[in-house]
């Protein structure tokens, strides 16, 4: 498994894991209070910091096993895969933005708009990482 794929796994697990945990907390708090929880800035900041730490620690861990590959530039095939991931991520961002606008128009709620945008950001980033993993295992570009 190349460093690029290991890196994609680290990013995907960290992003989806922490994103899922945050939204899980959100759902739990909303159920408890009976109303949609408003965005909690300290919790969001904590989440971002934890994400950064998880990514750094994860990359250090995978780089230890192959430092030469970790420092090498992407080759032509890896750059192709990365471009595909970026293209798919852009499509997710576009669709997510439009859906977020629809959510706001339908609800008039800035809170719903915030969560819709946050969710689409998480999914668009995750799609980029999952694309890398997919094309690695599929083989053919």
């Amino acid at each position, binding site marked *: 498994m190349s460093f690029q794929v290991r890196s994609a796994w680290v990013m995907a697990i960290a992003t989806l894991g922490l994103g899922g945990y945050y939204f899980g907390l959100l759902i739990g708090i909303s159920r408890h209070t009976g109303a949609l929880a408003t965005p909690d800035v300290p919790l969001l900041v904590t989440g971002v910091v934890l994400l950064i730490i998880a990514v750094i620690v994860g990359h250090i861990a995978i780089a230890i096993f192959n430092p030469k590959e970790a420092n090498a530039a992407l*080759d032509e*095939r*890896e750059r192709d895969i990365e471009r595909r991931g970026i293209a798919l991520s852009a499509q997710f961002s576009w669709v997510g933005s439009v859906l977020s606008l629809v959510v706001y128009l339908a609800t008039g709620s800035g809170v719903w708009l915030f969560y819709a945008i946050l969710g689409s950001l998480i999914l668009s980033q995750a799609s980029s990482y999952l694309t890398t993993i997919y094309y*690695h295992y*599929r083989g053919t570009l």
Partner: protein
Amino acid sequence: MPARLPIGNRVKQLREAQNGMTQSELGEAIGVTRQTVAAIEQRRYSPSLETAFRIAKVFNTPIDSVFYWDEGASST
């Protein structure tokens, strides 16, 4: 199952004939990863023209002795 690419190659045979050159060694010589060399040999990836010429140069053989058009392969 992904379709086989229409460009065939003899990279693996030529590599092994070079005193048992490894995929990593070939990758280092042409500027790609071991995984990309493996993908080329398994016809899961068609290298760029530049990389194809580099491979031919490593084996000191004409490029059309390394790569060939496979009429029988299905393509997407």
